[in-house]
């Protein structure tokens, strides 16, 4: 579970979030109001008099949020917010003639970046789900990406290692690809230059390399140390962010390296921080404040929980939540990697749950394209059918 230090940090941030706007408003008057608006929506304090500058900060905030969510570059958010506040301090007027200037200021009640993060991430998720529903956009979005992302490559390698996949189904680790990404993320998020690119974070890549025997001995030592230090027992995926699939892979890798504590702590995280609530599990956990939010897309939920179920870290409750999504994926086929992964993960699940109809339907699609899906499919084939299933 999250440490007390996370709780303390949350309290401090909350207090600061409440205090800072008040300080700005009462300390700087009308200018302070403009400055304070930027704490909620960066750029909002500049829209009235410097619309384009304000919009630039707002758009910049969206970009910074994306960079933060994807690569852990949290400093970008602080920079944009800080920059917008300073810009308002410099350019916002001392007062207005229009009656609108006298509108009351409503202080933010929560950590101010998070509503925007939730807003942006929610908007991105909504747009993604919209493209899945509108026929033309669905066709455009269903095209396979030309290159496999480094993160997905790492995951595929890791799962293939978990599966003990035969040579023809194994995914050879592209260490250079993984290292390149790790260096870029390290530089963008934490200004890390030189040295071992895998010294911190990068849970998926380190899990893959560890299980493939490609981590140096001191690399493995740092992996274990990083996990011990971490709040949830596994390193972050990107600086600050714990993602459940990568965390699961890291826990499996550490467990197989003899570090059972990671598995124990991760199992607890799957019950609490990433617990199943109303059919969903949190999509990410930000370690500095110990806050989780969002929900995993169906494929990630299926893959994460399939692996966890195979390790015995969770029960069968997720299958009820995943079943419809898995069947829907089987109907859509394997044209899209997300569906292919969902199908393959569901096949892992079906080694443990007695669902004859789903087994029949999910046996039909041919999993042969996405490396992560193929590795999962091999894994499913290698798992003996659970005794409760064979008893039917």
């Amino acid at each position, binding site marked *: 579970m999250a440490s007390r230090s996370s709780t303390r940090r949350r309290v401090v941030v909350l207090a600061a979030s409440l205090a800072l706007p008040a300080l700005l408003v009462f300390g700087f008057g009308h200018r302070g109001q403009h400055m304070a608006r930027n704490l909620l929506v960066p750029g909002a304090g500049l829209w009235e008099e410097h619309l384009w500058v304000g919009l630039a900060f707002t758009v910049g905030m969206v970009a910074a949020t994306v960079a933060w969510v994807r690569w852990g570059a949290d400093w970008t958010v602080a920079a944009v917010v800080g920059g917008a506040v300073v810009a308002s301090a410099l350019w916002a007027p001392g007062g207005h003639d229009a009656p609108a200037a006298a509108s009351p200021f409503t202080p933010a009640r929560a950590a101010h970046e998070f509503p925007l993060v939730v807003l942006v991430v929610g908007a991105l998720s909504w747009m993604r789900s919209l493209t899945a529903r509108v026929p033309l956009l669905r066709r455009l979005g269903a095209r396979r990406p030309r290159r496999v992302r480094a993160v997905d490559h790492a995951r595929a390698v890791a799962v293939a290692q978990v599966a003990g996949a035969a040579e023809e189904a194994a995914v050879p680790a592209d260490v250079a690809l993984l290292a390149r990404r790790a260096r870029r993320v390290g530089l963008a998020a934490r200004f890390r230059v030189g040295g071992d690119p895998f010294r911190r974070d990068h849970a998926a890549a380190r899990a893959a390399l560890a299980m493939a025997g490609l981590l140096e001995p001191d690399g493995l030592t740092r992996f274990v140390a990083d996990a011990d230090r971490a709040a949830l027992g596994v390193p972050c995926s990107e600086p600050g962010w714990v993602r459940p699939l990568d965390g699961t892979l890291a826990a499996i890798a550490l467990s197989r390296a003899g570090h059972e504590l990671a598995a124990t702590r991760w199992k607890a995280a799957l019950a609490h921080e990433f617990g199943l609530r109303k059919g969903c599990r949190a999509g990410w956990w930000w370690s500095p404040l110990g806050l989780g939010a969002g929900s995993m897309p169906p494929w990630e939920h299926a893959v994460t929980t399939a692996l966890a179920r195979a390790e015995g870290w969770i029960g069968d409750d997720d299958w009820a939540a995943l079943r419809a999504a898995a*069947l829907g994926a089987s109907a859509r086929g394997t044209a899209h990697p997300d569906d292919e992964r969902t199908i393959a993960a569901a096949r892992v699940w079906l080694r443990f749950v007695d669902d004859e109809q789903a087994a029949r339907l999910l046996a039909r699609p*041919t999993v042969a394209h996405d490396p992560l899906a193929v590795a999962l499919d091999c894994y499913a084939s290698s798992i003996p059918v659970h005794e409760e299933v064979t008893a039917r």
Partner: protein
Amino acid sequence: MTATLLLPTAPRRMGPVTRFLVLRTVAVVLLVEVAGSVLVAAGGADARAAGLSLVFPGAGFLYAGHPELFVATWVLLSLALVLWWGISAHFGIPLVWGLSVLGAWLVGGPRWHWALPVGYVLAAVAVGALVWTFEARFRRKRAKVPMLNEYLATADLPEPSRPLREPDDMDAELLRWAYELALQPLDRFDGFEWGEQFHGGTVVRYQLNYLGWALAPYAVNYIPNALGQIEPAMRNLVHKQTDLRVWRYWRTLNLVGNFAADPDPIVRDNIMFSGFTGDQLNLYEAATGSTVFDQPGSLTFVWEDGRTFEYDHHSWMQAVRRNFERSRLGFFPCEPGWSFAACNTIGGQALYGHDRLHGTDLWGSVAERWRTTLEQEYLMPDGNYANIRSTHTGLSWDTGETPGGEYFTTGTHSFKDLAPDIAERGRKLSLRGVPEKLGKLAALVRDGDLAMELPVEWERNRARKTAVPGWTKIIAGARAVGLEDLAAAAQRAGDRQCATGQVWPERPLDVGVANMALHMLVRWSTPVDNAMLNVRGWVPPVGPLVDADWPAVLITLARSADGRSLDLGVRPGPSGPAVDAVELRFASLTPSGHYRLIGDGVAVDVAASAEGTATAALAVDRPLRLALEVVA
């Protein structure tokens, strides 16, 4: 000889249900005309424009001095007509008409008062043209009745030929192609032709239907004693019907035509899917004896959101029957609002076949009404049946799918199983003059060779030009009038002209998948055709059984004439000539009996076990025509 069913001597213009639907449509149109006329007579300028558009769509725009909007109205109406037919957009024409009324009301402009009488003249001409077209066609057909009845009473057509054929090289190529197509993974559709899935020559469901229909007579006529390869192929063709890409179209049609978002493709309408595939199911069971689709949930459709619609052979047929019973017209729709005689005949075949296989009475409960609908609502005076009728308006016209929009017989069995007397009448009418015509063609056959080529014509999907459908018609026609020499010669000539030498996923004949399957159906429907199979049901084979592994070996012939020996034809499968010997597995032999496998340089002794089984190792490096004979 039983007297042939004659045509009604005093035919009615419309059946009772059609009359009701047409009169209802007329009443609605009359109401619209009256409402329009009231507005024209009593309204102001804007109301007059709107009223005139009610009298004749878009005429109000003429009154308002906007002829371009009148033209635009009729362009949109034409599009609405196409969409009405194409995707059951029944609201299209009323919507455009209504918009022309509203638009005429709103648009300003000069008042062309001459448009007032013109609007009424146009309305009268339109109605008159419709009535004239219908009445003229009716009278033209009615005038032929005495002559046609005379013909029906006296014509003595030759019996069709039903030879027991030996499969030739092209039969083997077609069979191999069909197996490779069907036995690929269930979610793969390599070799099928894809296009829009609503109508026409590119819909995959019809390709699956036709292939299933074609393999059924091959199983019965050529390899009844070796079902091990053809059964999974036919089974897979049924399973592929449950692939979302094949039936997804229905959700759109149901939404547009019935305003219902239910994607279930069986529960309502859609007889082009439920009836056709139901018939395919029957023939699969009748040809192979398999009951795999009788198991609950064996045919499950899964929608994109994971919802499942579970069916099996029984519940599927129950749904078809319920639709028949619910239908006001007696024939239920393919696309919402459109009922086809062909599709409802195939739907009837599906119910009939299920009854024969399972001892139920599904067909019995709808047969009488089906026949009444056919003879009263669809039959024309000259013995043709209308292809289509709107279940909303009662109207029917030539949609271009069949020549003239009518036919003497329909379904895939030409009524032979559902209504033999109607089948006989239709057969006589459709073959009128054919023996003489084909007799002239038969005279061109020299030593079994027909030295001619047919012109190539566009396929329905306009993807290519081909002569195969023309050859198919000649083969079918020749067999239908007993000219087997012509049929055989035409088959060879067609193979010669249209063979490509290609293998799956390409095609061995230069034709699309659907037409190639129909060619296979005609080619292989002798001596037993699918109508006879539907009536007969499953009959276990007699004599020795044989099996061999696919794709190493292709079994092209396995039948027993005497219940003791076995005629056998094998050749290399797609994996090429076997380097090593392949295993032929025999069953249903006389326990501990002695046999010899001979032919084409092969002489192998086969000793049956106490259970009546045996194996023989054989190098199948070329086509082999063999016989398994009992050693005395």
